[in-house]
Structure formats: structure tokens, C-alpha cells
């Protein structure tokens, strides 16, 4: 088995974040990633679609983080952006948004579902997340920037969600949620932090390698793809 490929699936560039895509991509590459997903918040999208600096060894995926409080509008936005992006993230943070995101199989990741006095997930939501194959996104940016009681809250929410995810077999995605270059951490550091925060080694590794790859392969079907479960492997004349 070769060296695993690491992906950072939530990076914000200008005008949402502080640095340009090129800067973030260069640093992420230096830090050992094989790809990042540019996921600007949908309320702060640039006027024109930026060109993504992808090379053979390093790819920048097109993503979006949808911010919408109204569930029916959220479903509308999902339909609008689904075709044009590789990674569709929903910015969680209220009961209705979490529910709408986890019940929609076209969503890839629900980021930070926690809201006031709740970790944001329960058994019902976890079950539908597993059914619809929506991953729960763990962003490390808040963990890095908070200290003391704020971080204690974040960690206990994380533990609660982790227990539910384990029980109902929900996939996890570990990402930086970076707003600037200084929020990026190398893959090894991210893994170490995740393990200290309660993830198992294999869970953390899966959340940064296998799950992102699966999301991409799901959204970028191969040339023979007809629909889910049906694929042309070999063409020929069978008469």
C-alpha cells in the first residue's frame, strides 16, 4: 500500500477568507496534502468563478459551503449548485438546517452541526445521515483558536457526535476550515490533534483520506457511468 493521500475539504479563499486560492494551494501542498476543496460560504461568493490551480500531484476541487436558515431555500440552493461543484457542504448550526442537510442525499458534508447547548446530532439525525451518506465535517479551526471553557464545550460536543457517528456508522470528514494560510495545519498535525481530541487512529486517517476520496469519486463518475449502480465496463458487440 502506498502513502495515503490527504485532503483538506474545507478551505475558504478570498473574498470569504483572507488569502487567495493560489497561496492556500501552495501552502497546503507544502504541508503534504494531495488536494484541497475550495469551499467558500455561499453568502460570500466571488463575482466570477476563480480559476483553480490544479496540477497532476495536487488538485483543487470546486466546493461550496451553503449558508441558509430556511430549509426549503436550502434544498433549492442544493439543487442549484449540485451540478457545478465537486463538494457540497452545508453550514450547520440550527436544528432545522441540520435536519434538512442530513435528509438530503445530494449533500456531501454537514459542517459543525453544534448549536446552543446541543451537539447538533441525535439518534434520528445520525440515522438519516448514515442512510443518505452525508458525512459530518469536523473543522479544526475553532479548536485551534479557542482556549479554556470555549474549547471544553467544542470538545464535549465533538465527543457526543463521535459516539453517535460510531453507533450509526456515519462517516466523518476532518478538515481545517481555514480562513487564512495560518489556519492550515499539516496532515500529521491534524491527525495528532484529532487523536488527542478523542478519535481513534484509523478513524482520523479515514476522515482525512478515504472519505474525501469517496466523495470525489461519487461526484465525478467515470466515463462509463450511467446511473448509480450501473456502469459500462467494457463495450462490445454481443449479438
Amino acid at each position, binding site marked *: 500500500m502506498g502513502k495515503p493521500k490527504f485532503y483538506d475539504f474545507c478551505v475558504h479563499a478570498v473574498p470569504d477568507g483572507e488569502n487567495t486560492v493560489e497561496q492556500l494551494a501552495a501552502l497546503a501542498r507544502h504541508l503534504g496534502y494531495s488536494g484541497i476543496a475550495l469551499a467558500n460560504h455561499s453568502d460570500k461568493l466571488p463575482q466570477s468563478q476563480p480559476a483553480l490551480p490544479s496540477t497532476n500531484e495536487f488538485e483543487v476541487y470546486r466546493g461550496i459551503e451553503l449558508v441558509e436558515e430556511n430549509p426549503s431555500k436550502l434544498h433549492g440552493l442544493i439543487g442549484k449548485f449540485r451540478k457545478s461543484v465537486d463538494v457540497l457542504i452545508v453550514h450547520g448550526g440550527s436544528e432545522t438546517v441540520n435536519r434538512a442537510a442530513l435528509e438530503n442525499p445530494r449533500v456531501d458534508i454537514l459542517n459543525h452541526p453544534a448549536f446552543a447547548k446541543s451537539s447538533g446530532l441525535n439518534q434520528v439525525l445520525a440515522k438519516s445521515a448514515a442512510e443518505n451518506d452525508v458525512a459530518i465535517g469536523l473543522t479544526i479551526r475553532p479548536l485551534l483558536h479557542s482556549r479554556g471553557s470555549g474549547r471544553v464545550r467544542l470538545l464535549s460536543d465533538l465527543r457526543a457526535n463521535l459516539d453517535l457517528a460510531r453507533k450509526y456508522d456515519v462517516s466523518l470528514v476532518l478538515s481545517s476550515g481555514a480562513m*487564512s494560510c*495560518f489556519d492550515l495545519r499539516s496532515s500529521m*498535525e491534524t491527525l495528532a490533534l484529532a487523536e488527542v481530541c478523542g478519535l481513534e487512529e484509523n478513524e482520523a486517517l479515514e476522515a482525512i483520506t478515504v472519505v474525501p476520496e469517496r466523495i470525489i469519486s461519487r461526484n465525478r463518475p467515470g466515463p462509463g457511468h450511467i446511473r448509480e449502480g450501473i456502469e459500462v465496463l467494457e463495450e462490445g458487440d454481443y449479438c
Partner: protein
Amino acid sequence: MKRLLPSLRAKKRYLAFELISEVPVSRSDLVKEVMFSASSLLGDVTASECDIKVLGFEESKGIIQCSHTKVKETRASLATLTRVNGKRATVHILGTSGTIKRATEKFLQNTVFEPEIRINSKHLKNNNLGRIQES
């Protein structure tokens, strides 16, 4: 005082790192910040078990020592370092090794770094880390 026998000394790991920062940072500020982030993330008890020490730090590259069983915890606590002296900074660990010599040879000599983001990009050619002896 007589030095401990080699077999009785605590085993260590040496983490070669580079600091990506907005402005150049002094060693004492970095040490303060490393200790603070370690005890804040891990608590004083675990942080003391980690035995973290900043050994050498020059031109934004250096070596941090930790206990050989606590590399993961040390890495995690270094990841939570976000600011040094009020200015944003990030510690990027280049690699770990069992000896200072090897860590210096393997990770600190002729490391290349991409230019755009680097604010203080200087190559560390003749670093003085070799002078630090295990003491």
C-alpha cells in the same frame, strides 16, 4: 552530580520544525507560547509528561524535544499554537528523529520552501543546531 546511566535516561524524540509567521519571532516568545499551548490543550499534568523543550531556534527553523511516548500529544499541542507575541504563526513539523544530529541532517539542511506565502523565507544553510549537545 553524577550523570545518569544511558539506559536510565529518559528516551526522547526530536521534532524538527519550521515556523511560518507574519513577522520574525524571538526564541523566548516562541518558548512561552509553546508551553502555554501545551498546558492549555493537554493540562499541566500531561504537558509535564511530554517534557517539551525548545532546543534550538534560528531563522524560523528549530528543534523541539519531547518524550518518546508523547510525540502525538506534542504534535497536537504544537498544532494549536496560533499566535506568537500577538502575531499569527504556525508550527510546521518537518519530521521526527531519535537524535538531534539525525533530525538536523535529515530535516533542517537544504529544505526547500515555496516562496509566495513565506514572509521570512531564508534558507538555513549553516545552522548552529549541531552545536547543541544532548545535555
